[in-house]
């Protein structure tokens, strides 16, 4: 037993931070993150050690981890596929302000006013529809409650991920009204945005609410689906940017800053735009696609404190 313990202690002792690496907690899709990490390593010689979330744990894993590690951070950079979790971490004092030069040309709606995080490469919350069975797709969120779509609408669990962000962004009144209307219209609530897309693609549902990158991935593999940016005549479509932030007390702060500069470069946005996820650059200089869409005005800080509202949405949906 003692020999085993000694071995264990030797294992523990083997890990002090190295200067030629950084740790990135990435709550984003691994397939897009890895090439960017490898590119950074090629250019800088600094190795990136990532920790990824799983699809189902996206609200739970890395955020809890960062909060628990606050006194002794392992992580240098937090990269999320939205801003809500980043705003929460800012509120908890996990992040430190950083104004990267590469992000100087990113407009105010896509950055934290206190420089705790910077946004880039956005996804839109869209209505996905089956192009075979649907000739006139709904153009607003409210239209999803039209009786002609009864039992044929799918959304993801409103407690997690971008669906949670979407309901929170609508504000309490509208969110609860929409939830009740969808419930009355027999909405199907499934585990994730990709499942929404798959249901629509297979014809089990006609329309759904999902992320734009899920739709593009489906179209690329041959699914008969299309997308609509909802509420272009009204409040606008919710566009959710990636966000990157420097962790307070980062063990490799200098390398972390270099990495953030790399991630906020126009090349990164071009890469994400050209990738299967077709993420929308927030810089008009890279692409004007996003500027052609009427986007919803959002206070990400407020959205990070929406647990109570989301509980009520869950109950309104009958979950």
């Amino acid at each position, binding site marked *: *037993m003692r020999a085993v313990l000694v071995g264990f202690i030797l294992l523990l002792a083997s890990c002090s931070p190295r200067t030629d690496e950084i740790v990135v907690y990435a709550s984003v899709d691994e397939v897009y993150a890895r090439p960017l990490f490898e590119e950074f390593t090629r250019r800088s010689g600094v190795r990136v050690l990532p920790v990824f979330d799983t699809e189902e744990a996206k609200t739970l894993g890395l955020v809890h981890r960062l909060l628990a590690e606050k006194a002794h951070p392992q992580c240098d950079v937090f990269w999320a596929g939205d801003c809500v979790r980043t705003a929460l971490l800012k509120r908890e004092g996990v992040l430190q302000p950083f104004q990267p030069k590469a992000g100087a040309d990113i407009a105010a709606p896509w950055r934290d006013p206190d420089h705790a995080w910077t946004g880039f490469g956005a996804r839109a919350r869209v209505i996905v529809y089956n192009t075979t069975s649907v000739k006139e797709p709904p153009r607003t969120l409210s239209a999803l409650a039209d009786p002609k779509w009864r039992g044929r609408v799918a959304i993801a669990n409103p407690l997690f991920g971008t669906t949670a962000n979407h309901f929170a962004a609508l504000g309490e009144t509208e969110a609860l009204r929409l939830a009740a209307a969808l419930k009355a219209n027999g909405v199907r609530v499934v585990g994730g945005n*990709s499942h929404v897309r798959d249901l629509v693609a297979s014809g089990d549902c006609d329309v759904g609410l999902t992320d734009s990158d899920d739709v593009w991935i489906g179209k690329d593999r041959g699914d008969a689906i299309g997308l609509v940016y909802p509420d272009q005549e009204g409040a606008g479509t919710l566009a959710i940017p990636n966000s990157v932030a420097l962790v307070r007390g980062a063990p490799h702060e200098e390398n972390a800053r270099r990495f953030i500069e790399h991630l906020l470069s126009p090349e990164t946005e071009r890469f994400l735009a050209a990738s299967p996820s077709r993420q929308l650059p927030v810089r008009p200089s890279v692409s004007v696609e996003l500027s052609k869409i009427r986007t919803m005005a959002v206070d990400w800080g407020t959205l990070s404190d929406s647990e109570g509202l989301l509980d009520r949405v869950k109950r309104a949906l009958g979950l």
Partner: protein
Amino acid sequence: MRRAWGLVLAAPLAGFLLEAAVGAGRATLQLRAWGTTLVVAGGAALLALGFGIPAGAALAHSRRTLFRVLTLLPLLLPPVLGAAAWLAARLPAPGAPGCALILGCLYWPVVALLLEASLRRLPADAIDAASLQWSTRRLLGMVVWRHVRPALLGAALLVFLLAASEFTVPALFVVPTVSMTVYEEISAFRTRSAAAAALPLVALAVALAWMLRRAPVLPASSPVRPFLQGPLLAAARALAGVAWAATALLPAVLFGWRAGSFFRNAAMNLEPIGWSLIYAGATALILITWSSLGGPRRSRLEPLWLATLVLPGVIAGLGALKIAERSGVFPYLAPSGALFVLALMARFAFVAWLPLREPVDRSQIDAAELAGLSRFRIWKGILLPAMLPRAAAAGAVVFVLAMGEIGPAVLLTPPGRMTAAQHLFGLMHYGYDGVVAALALFLFGATALVTWSAMNVGRFRTNRLAG
């Protein structure tokens, strides 16, 4: 030392409960969630009995390792693969009954294996004596059924607990069970509410562990005197075959079909596979060493270890994280993965402990001590031959369970060292079906290989020691 380690292994659960006591939220009874849970977990337990009873009877009438491996496979796979197979088969949304079906298909081996173990404790001569007087039907009713009844009750309760605390399947199909509630409350940082939702599960686990304390010592494997024959035995084997085909072979075929170039996909993921093997290997090795050292002994911590096993894995991870942070050991344990291994050890301590807590009758040790044998000779000559097959089997089970564990992994794997299971789940929704299927097939294969080897190596070494 053994007792100290036992306390360490109970720490993550204690950490979670402590966090619950001081954390945010309210202690409310989640009636609706419990109603759904009763459907899911109760249905799973019934289905597990339906598959498990004939399979257990079939196992008791066979000595082939293949059937044992086929029985273990569904149990040792991450439950989310069952849900992935459902989705891959393009079946409609299952709802609570469908979740019960999926979980019953995964957990029926618990019933089969506990029933087989109970049947092996049934004295062979008791069956012979009954066969001299009674018909097969009366023999089954008067002797066999009365003997196995407690084991079946315990098995059904264990399946209920495992199904009630399983999170990934209800989450995928948005079925609001208690485990979902626990997860939602943790996500909202309301750990007190999460603990309140989980407390009935903890209480049930403690009750089950208390029942197991009074269970007799598991004997070394002995052949069961056949009590089924003719049409009854054929029917048991046929039903067992359906269970094996539907829950072990069919998913393997499905994943094999979708895996595409298995070796290419696996080769692209060698690093997470390697880390999985290291973490799981370390967990199994240390746990088996801990549970097999020292003489036969029971522990008052067993209910806590069992609770850690049957509660959602994320609780062990969160508890370990919080305890490490509060105690100040986090910076020393986290970066290397030691904290992750400790959380896995806490999670599966009961699995390693139960088969090895009393490998031989106490009287054998007493006789050896009276004969003046040294502790080393007692361990080598008496304990080790009895423990070896069980240690091999328990180690194999811990190894494959640890490989597929996702809850603590999300919270505790060091940067750059993610496991194959984490990697697999991260890819599940991208349409990277080939890679997902390849990784799932790897887990299948590793499970089968490790289990088969453990059963045969244990038997080989025991024969050599006995010879």
